[in-house]
């Protein structure tokens, strides 16, 4: 009884792998499908989470349960991820509408970004370094006792 779902899952995985492997376009199509499904769920339920993020969780779920193998999707996903800049660069031209950035406002914004980023980097790196050492110390204590 218990074996039936895992057998179907493995069959699905093999079937998906066979039809998608080596075909980046089909992999991208599946990702687009998950995105559209996520958007539909997000809109119909009124969840405050973007549909694309729901799609991300759906794909992660399929990977964790083994319904889709990593090797089935990796190349298609890389097609999208490698050229991500192209897909948001149009928005950057919003600067054309803001000639005030050429003056004092622009300098202020730059100051906020530079100083803020410096602080973010320092705080994050120090927090992670301290946390890492703490974790190692706790683990070695556990190992001793």
């Amino acid at each position: 009884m218990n074996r039936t779902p895992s057998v179907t899952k493995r069959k699905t995985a093999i079937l998906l792998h066979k039809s998608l492997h080596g075909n980046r376009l089909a992999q991208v199509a599946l990702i687009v499908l998950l995105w559209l499904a996520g958007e539909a769920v997000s809109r119909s339920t009124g969840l405050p989470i973007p549909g694309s993020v729901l799609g991300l969780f759906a794909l992660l779920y399929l990977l964790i349960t083994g319904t889709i193998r990593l090797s089935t999707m990796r190349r298609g996903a890389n097609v999208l991820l490698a050229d991500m800049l192209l897909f948001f660069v149009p928005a950057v031209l919003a600067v054309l509408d803001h000639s005030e950035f050429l003056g004092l406002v622009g300098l202020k914004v730059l100051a906020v970004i530079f100083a803020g980023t410096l602080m973010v980097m320092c705080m994050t790196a120090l927090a992670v370094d301290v946390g890492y050492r703490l974790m190692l110390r706790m683990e070695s204590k556990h190992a001793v006792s």
Partner: protein
Amino acid sequence: MPSLETILITVFWSAATIAIYLLSKRTYRRWPAIWSSPLVLTPVLLAALALSLHTTYSEYIGATRWLMAILGPVTVAFAIPIYEQRAMIMRYWPVLAFGIVVGSGTAILTAWALASLLSIDGMLRLSLLPRSVSSPFAMAISEKVGGVPDLTALFVVITGVAGAALGEKLLRILPLKSSLARGALFGMGAHGAGVAKANQIGAEEGSVAGLVMVLVGLVNVLAAPILAYILR
């Protein structure tokens, strides 16, 4: 039916955007430097072209908005790097979670505080809040908290360039023992550009940075409704 003119404008600006992007990538491969990275070169060249043709932003974005729709599938594809790094997540999740919470908190608080200090307010200040988050996530957050997503994309790019440049200098000053901390510094502080920089420093730093970047995006998107509630 869209007019012939609209179609022509759409085709022209879409082709120009893609061509300039590919050209920038090539230029960077030949002369790798921060000023020649596609992140800087593509928007600068596009802006120069738009200005010389007297094209307004609304005309331009009307023609190229379809490119930005692809950010939806890009976000879904981020599931792959998360899954690839699952061993690192399992091993170091408390440290990563701590770093992401501290980093995201610092990012939002410093943006708000510094902007207020310099008397930047309204939608400009709100658009600055998610600047430390990778752009597909940042634009979604910006919309949720009442900012202008397009301006946020601009600030995200500036943050990436600034962070990649600053991060290298910071590494020389900060006494960081772990590659985890070095990678997190770039992934949290400078998202995409930071990940590229971290990869130059080391493979481990690169994969930490990439993972942190995606997780920061996710955590911030999930926290955005709370942030929007506080700001209201």
